């Protein structure tokens, strides 16, 4: 199957509150010659409802996989949660015939069928494995040598290990490599692999925001001038909730949080106005000034 053409799975969080991620991702993928096809119909990947019912999650995921199969295309997602969930379902259903038959019975009610013929990858996996660093390097016209950044890959990009099979969750390197190709310097800091807390934000805000605070404290101490993410939910926690955390705990950060695709877009020389910077809650002005 083509490594240059994917069906794009947006998920719920991107259209809800991360248009800056979507718009910048589409721009950089276009520059790299990666063609995207829209989902003809869509439903949530099922991850948020898995605490309620594993079966709901399986059926919702399988519906999307079946739709992509009908189009004959592999799925590219911008959200690691969606990628992980679709991967997990695909694997579970391929390995367990009884489960597959059960799920397909539910799917047949609306004329869909899962057969397991397509793959699912998060954009960072597509960039590393299918596009490749060499091809990305060729599109860099404005290396971001002035920038010192910290990365946060997010749990679902690599955990649980047995389902994701992408990189080492204890020492994630994918995002670091992708950052370095833009010319920016990526620093290490304490607790890089710690969770952002997004999944319990609606259940216990205090715990969720304490996790954000801890992370932002470590980043402030690391010498990085910004944080780079590849997940709409992690981004929301560190960008939109940064002001809440500052108020709640009496901290001052002012750490801009960029989607990786915005950083790459800058290095590709794409106009700032086309990369969704106006959507960011923490002003990215100090980042943009540095690279003028």
């Amino acid at each position: 199957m083509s490594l240059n053409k994917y069906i794009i799975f947006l998920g719920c969080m991107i259209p809800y509150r991360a248009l800056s991620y979507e718009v910048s991702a589409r721009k950089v993928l276009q520059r790299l010659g990666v063609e995207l096809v829209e989902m003809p119909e869509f439903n949530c990947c099922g991850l948020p409802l898995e605490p309620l019912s594993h079966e709901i999650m399986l059926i919702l995921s399988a519906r999307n996989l079946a739709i992509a199969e009908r189009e004959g295309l592999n799925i590219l997602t911008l959200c690691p949660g969606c990628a992980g969930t679709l991967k997990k379902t695909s694997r579970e259903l391929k390995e367990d015939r009884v489960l597959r038959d059960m799920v397909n019975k539910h799917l047949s009610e609306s004329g869909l069928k899962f057969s397991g013929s397509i793959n699912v990858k998060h954009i960072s996996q597509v960039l590393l494995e299918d596009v490749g660093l060499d091809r990305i390097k060729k599109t860099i016209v404005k290396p971001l040598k002035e920038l010192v950044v910290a990365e946060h890959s997010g749990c679902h990009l690599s955990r649980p290990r047995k389902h994701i099979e992408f990189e080492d969750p204890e020492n994630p390197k994918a995002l670091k490599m992708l950052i370095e190709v833009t010319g920016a310097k990526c620093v290490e800091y304490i607790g890089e692999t710690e969770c952002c807390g997004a999944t319990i934000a609606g259940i216990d805000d205090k715990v969720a925001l304490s996790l954000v605070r801890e992370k932002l404290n470590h980043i402030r101490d690391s010498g990085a001038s910004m944080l780079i993410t590849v997940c709409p939910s992690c981004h929301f926690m560190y960008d939109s909730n940064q002001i809440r955390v500052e108020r709640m705990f009496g901290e001052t950060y002012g750490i801009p949080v960029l989607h990786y695709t915005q950083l790459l877009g800058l290095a590709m020389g794409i106009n700032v106005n086309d990369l969704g910077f106006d959507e960011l809650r923490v002003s990215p002005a100090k980042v943009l000034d540095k690279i003028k």
Partner: protein
Amino acid sequence: MSKIEEIKPLRIDPKFRYEIARMPDGKNILQCFQCGTCTSDCPVARFNEKYRPRNIIRMAQLGLREKVLSSDFLWLCASCFTCTDRCPQGVEVASVIRALKNLAAIEGRIPQIFRAQLGNLLKTGYICEIPETRIRKRDSIGLPPLPKGDAEGIYRSLRDLRIMKVIGVAKA
């Protein structure tokens, strides 16, 4: 004057651990030897005194069904899967906790947020209500229209699940 609480012997369901072991990714619950790796590495446990994955697993092993399924802290797992990846015994801790949440849900113990998300899903395919301003913004910055959800198809795929009747969304 404070009332003295009557102490009752805890109700035990000795087969409970086998029920969990039969659920997806639950089988290794029997292997847990209570080392505590899950709890010491848990990001939530650092900020919440009640949430202790090791205790949850132990309660399930001992058959304290009612006690564990009725606990609020069950819902605090952030699903980061750190415990699952690090367990030396191969217990998929996060999946065991998810199995417990699923059992609690079937008994009708469901935090409001999930009812709201399921309600949105059945209306639009999305778990959140995407505001009209976002839809207009998409258009103004040149993004393609959002894919639509097949509400009827989603409902038909889910309606036979037992949980749908518990939540009360399955139509007659």
